[in-house]
């Protein structure tokens, strides 16, 4: 008798708990995972976002780092977790759309519940300020005149820096006449660009603030505000889908998240991104904010996954 009351009480409690999952969410701290080292660009962006996200959702939020394998280790680990909304990772275009198509990782396009996108910047191809190349036309004629002479760098195979180079040179049909020299990270590659061992490198606009580089082309749908003289990829003759390339990133939870929880997280993300504090942070750090809600981000993510397949093909990855 006593036992049965107890069990029925427990069942009742369990039932009530499952029904109230979304109502009570969040009832414990939320973990935002940076798939790269503490102190890197992604990590700091997330640490800048976390306090505002915490305020918006009304719970503790902490940032943890799970670095390795160009971000695939964190994504692979998250993919196997329970979709309870307490764990999300900030994934970039490469982690979420490129790596799963070139590596045998346990996640793919259907492994996620996209929550929101936070930032997106178009990439640029650039040379040093004292380089003889003033335009992409100069580059094409120089490469055709001396095939095999010119070298482009990247921060590693499959990185956004590599894909920028591939978009440009495959788009112009000269990639087979050039050499690719990958480095470990952007730092050494920029050093070799300054030293002259490589002639071309590509990344987002923020590197232009250094003042010693000259952009030749921007992979955006239109010219960017800061560089009105730099032509878009379409203008220099690069055809779709290689003509646009953005370094974007956003929050992803494992697939199968309850719609109510997704909605709460999405609302918190929107509030956090729009907060004065984060806007100021973004202005200081040169982050280009690009907010998309869950549904819109999902569609964008799937479209990117598709179109980046062409890029991977061109890169020979």
């Amino acid at each position, binding site marked *: 008798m006593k036992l049965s009351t107890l069990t029925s009480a427990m069942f009742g409690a369990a039932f009530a708990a499952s029904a109230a999952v979304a109502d009570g969410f969040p009832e414990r701290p939320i973990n935002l995972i940076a798939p790269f080292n503490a102190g890197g660009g992604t990590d700091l962006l997330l640490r800048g976002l976390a306090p505002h996200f915490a305020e918006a959702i009304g719970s503790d939020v902490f940032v943890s780092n799970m670095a390795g394998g160009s971000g*695939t280790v964190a994504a692979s680990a998250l993919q196997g977790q329970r979709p309870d909304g307490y764990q999300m990772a900030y994934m970039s275009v490469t982690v979420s759309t490129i790596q799963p198509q070139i590596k045998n990782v346990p996640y793919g396009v259907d492994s996620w519940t996209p929550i929101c996108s936070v930032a997106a910047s178009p990439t640029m191809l650039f040379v040093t300020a004292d380089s003889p190349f003033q335009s992409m036309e100069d580059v094409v004629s120089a490469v055709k005149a001396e095939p095999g002479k010119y070298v482009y760098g990247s921060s590693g195979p499959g990185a956004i820096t590599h894909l920028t180079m591939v978009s440009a040179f495959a788009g112009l049909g000269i990639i087979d006449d050039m050499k690719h020299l990958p480095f470990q990270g952007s730092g050494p590659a920029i050093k070799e660009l300054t030293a002259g061992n490589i002639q071309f490198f590509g990344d987002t606009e923020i590197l232009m603030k250094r003042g010693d580089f000259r952009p030749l082309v921007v992979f955006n749908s239109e010219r960017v505000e800061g560089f009105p003289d730099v032509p878009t990829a379409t203008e220099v003759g690069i055809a779709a889908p290689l003509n646009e390339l953005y370094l974007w990133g956003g929050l992803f939870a494992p697939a199968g998240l309850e719609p109510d929880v997704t909605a709460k997280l999405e609302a918190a993300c929107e509030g956090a991104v729009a907060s004065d504090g984060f806007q100021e942070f973004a202005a200081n750090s040169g982050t280009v904010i690009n907010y998309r809600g869950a549904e819109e981000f999902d569609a964008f993510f799937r479209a990117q996954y598709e179109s980046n397949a062409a890029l991977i093909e061109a890169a020979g990855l």
Partner: protein
Amino acid sequence: MLSSLPDAIAILLSFEGLVVLVLGTVLGIILGAMPGIGSTVAVAIVLPFTLTMSQAPAILLLLAVYAGSVYGGSIAAILINTPGTPQSAATCLDGYPMAQRGEAGLALGWATVASVVGGLISAVVLIFAAPQLASVALEFGPIETFALILLGMTCIVSVSTGSVVKGLLAGMIGIFLSTVGGDPILGEMRFTFGNWQLFAGFNLLAVVIGVFALSEVFMRASVHISKVSELVAFNGIVLPSRAMWRGRLRNLSKSVVIGNLIGVLPGTGAATAAFISYAEGRRSSPNRAGFGKGEPDGIVSSEAANNAVTGGALVPTMALGIPGDAITAVMLATLTLHGITPGPKLVEDNPTLIAAIFTGFFIINLLLLPLGMLLSRVAAPILRVREAFMMTAIVILCAVGIYFVRGNPFDLLVMGGAGVVGFLLRRQGVPMAPLVIGMVLGPTLELTLRQGLILTDGNFLAFFTGHPIALVLALAACVALMLPVWRALRARSTA
């Protein structure tokens, strides 16, 4: 920059400046001295706090914690043979035998003085010669770096205590371990056997902590414990007297120069500098016969060089906006958050900030001496706990330290496995330092070799014909390999 020195000093001597310098250094020393916990974790702990600080204090806190933890790492390396970072691994080679001999305080004294001197000189070099040194860094392309790493690899021979064959074997195992994971040029996966956890390769720190700290625990568990009471006789740091320095200054200054130069080259790092400097000491020091058996020159070589790297690594960071190592990369990212884009004009545009960072770095190194002496006095009683408690705590701390390196429980398994393998190999007389050298230098060796082959269209000979620096370094590597053989032959013929 020198004209903004008064403003810079005003920042440093403000309340916030002083608190950051002292607390950061103390925290760094304490964290570094804990077995298994090293610079990576120390920096991760303070990073959130730097986000809410203003520019100069944020960078200084990172620097203080970093410099403190590198110095603290040598304390654990010497007293209990458990380096918290790869760069203290070379310090174990002579520091631990000295401690076992009952001279732990003096061993730490040598390490402290060498660290402080190495750090201070590198700070001075940084203040006065950063632009000149940065142009040296630009001379080092992939091919020159390859030759330098080749020279570094010859250290394996000099740190192979006991058998050279076994040392080389350990070195090869280390290099092999570093090839697991993504191929650096093509990105294809090697030796992962379908396990995505291995896509990132074996974590260097997990292996280092496993083969040094955990295997040390197993070694102690395997032998008869006679003195259960005390781990090591230690009452605090004993500074070496002036007379003891006679005949050792040349080695010290050489080590500082090596540390500075290697620190300037992006992507080589403190562990490389410590080992190359140790090998050079073993080649040229008048006391070379005692290396590996508790010779102070061995401690000095390693510690002076690994601390001088800190200043060296700031050179390309500040002069070119290119991070010299992992910690300077964090510093640059922190600057970016504060609206400062690192680049060649960094010093020109922010003279006061940079002057504050440089002078702050000098002061941090000055603080190491009194704070190190004070903390070691406070910590001495902890080392008197019974060995069993200490061994248990070491395993638990190592687990914490390795977990926070990449936030991945898989690295704990790697650490455990490395501990067992390290234990088995050490029992057979296979030294572990060469394994660490192999793992530290292996990735750069392969990357620069293949980058060089791309640049020369596959012509290996062109590495040396068109690159005089590479040729000199490669010849030096040959000499370093041949010298022990030549010495042995000469000894035989005169006998």
